[in-house]
């Protein structure tokens, strides 16, 4: 019985450990040099005698009962009996005039840099929505940056409707305390809506995120994060909701023998991701998931659902753009270039939006909302670019 886990963040590590403890032969594949994922980047110590950890290895396709890998040893085909997808999520940026120029990066990029001890600027702003902005701001401040502001687009009153979720997840309130140093700089119903050089336009927003007043701040770096988009490339045909993979209470996806855990199923923090990993790892190894983990998932999902509601992106952001504002960075497609298409495919092929190197990972969702076409999710056959020469020489033998 071989369980393959893709991703070595909190969910992937938990799935790998649990499946190995249940007696399965486990291979954990990850694109980074060390386990930990984006959350624990390089700070996790992962060792388990039952788990083979393939580092610096990218999975570019799932085909039948095999994964196509690219890694230090070249291309190889890895067979599995059960597969756990724990590939996580990445920041969703919203476009505004100047977001494609220097001095704008995602909040996740700022955090990844901070975890490597690097900060790019003296005066920084963090703008977006959701509690994940706070650790980013804290990390930047700890590295000596001047925090001009942390701007939360949503209203905190939206959380008042979520008493049930909060009661079930009291520890989340405790986490807030660790960010107390940046709370004085937190402004809600506020967002960066333009940046020209170091001049940043900061707006107060109404409940729909339409600007109602604005001012100018000076900053060298703006870090943007309006929630997260899941990395679902490996399962182009799996059932999903708002692009997050649908799973049952044993973390099974709609694809036979394939499980999913962590932020690829929804955003609820590292503790939920880890609990999902335990459930998925057990189920993938053919065991009954532990009751404690199932209960943690149940509670965590209450919080995740509340989080999604309280920090849902509101349509007023679309008014921040000018006709010449870039929507698609790769192909330099502007708002005014978007066509009156009926489908995503028609929109792409008439405007070139989402047809560049990122294949719509950054812009497709935003372009769909700007034009009203149904968002068809992220359905790509090749999860990472692969040189033609490697495709021509794919191994046929499975290992």
């Amino acid at each position, binding site marked *: 019985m071989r369980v393959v886990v893709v991703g070595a963040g909190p969910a992937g590590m938990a799935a790998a450990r649990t499946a190995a403890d249940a007696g399965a032969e486990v291979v954990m594949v990850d694109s980074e040099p060390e386990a930990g994922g984006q959350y624990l980047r390089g700070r996790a110590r992962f060792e388990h005698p039952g788990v083979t950890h393939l580092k610096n290895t990218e999975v570019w396709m799932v085909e039948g009962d095999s994964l196509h890998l690219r890694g230090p040893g070249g291309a190889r085909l890895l067979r599995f009996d059960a597969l756990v997808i724990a590939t996580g999520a990445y920041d969703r940026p919203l476009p505004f005039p100047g977001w*494609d120029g220097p001095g*704008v*990066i995602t909040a*996740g*990029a700022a955090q990844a840099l901070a975890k490597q001890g690097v900060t790019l600027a003296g005066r920084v702003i963090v703008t977006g929505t959701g509690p994940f902005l706070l650790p980013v701001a804290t990390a930047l401040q700890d590295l000596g940056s001047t925090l001009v502001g942390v701007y939360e687009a949503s209203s905190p009153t939206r959380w008042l409707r979520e008493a049930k979720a909060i009661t079930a997840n009291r520890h989340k309130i405790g986490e807030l305390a660790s960010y107390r140093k940046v709370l004085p700089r937190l402004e809600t119903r506020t967002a960066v809506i333009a940046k020209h050089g170091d001049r940043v336009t900061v707006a107060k927003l109404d409940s729909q995120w339409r600007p109602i007043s604005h001012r100018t701040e000076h900053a060298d770096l703006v870090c943007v994060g309006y929630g997260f988009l899941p990395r679902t490339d490996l399962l182009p045909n799996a059932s999903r909701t708002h692009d997050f993979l649908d799973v049952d209470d044993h973390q099974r996806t709609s694809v036979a023998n394939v499980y999913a855990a962590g932020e690829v199923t929804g955003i609820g923090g590292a503790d939920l991701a880890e609990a999902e990993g335990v459930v998925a790892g057990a189920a993938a190894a053919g065991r009954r998931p532990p009751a404690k983990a199932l209960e943690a998932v149940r509670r965590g999902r209450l919080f995740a659902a509340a989080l999604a509601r309280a920090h849902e992106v509101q349509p007023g952001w679309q008014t921040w753009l000018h006709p010449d504002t870039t929507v698609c*960075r790769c192909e330099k497609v502007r708002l005014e270039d978007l066509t009156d298409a009926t489908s995503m495919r028609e929109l792409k092929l008439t405007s070139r939006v989402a047809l560049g190197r*990122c294949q719509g990972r*950054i812009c497709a969702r935003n372009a769909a909302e700007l034009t009203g076409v149904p968002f068809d999710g992220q359905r790509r056959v090749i999860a990472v670019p692969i040189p033609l020469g490697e495709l021509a020489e794919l191994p046929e033998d499975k290992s």
Partner: protein
Amino acid sequence: MKVTFNGLRREVAHVAELLPGRYFCGIGVCFGCVAEINGVPEVRACRHPLRDGDVIRTQS
């Protein structure tokens, strides 16, 4: 790190400093930072651990 960037010698702590406006997501998703690194085209620079002597050339 001492590197050659588009033919010029530069000293930087991180590859992000070389690529303002291109380094964006930092985790290999946006492909904004693709560059030719030590002769290999289409490398996502954010995923490349920078070393002394690296030769980096940005692509169109």
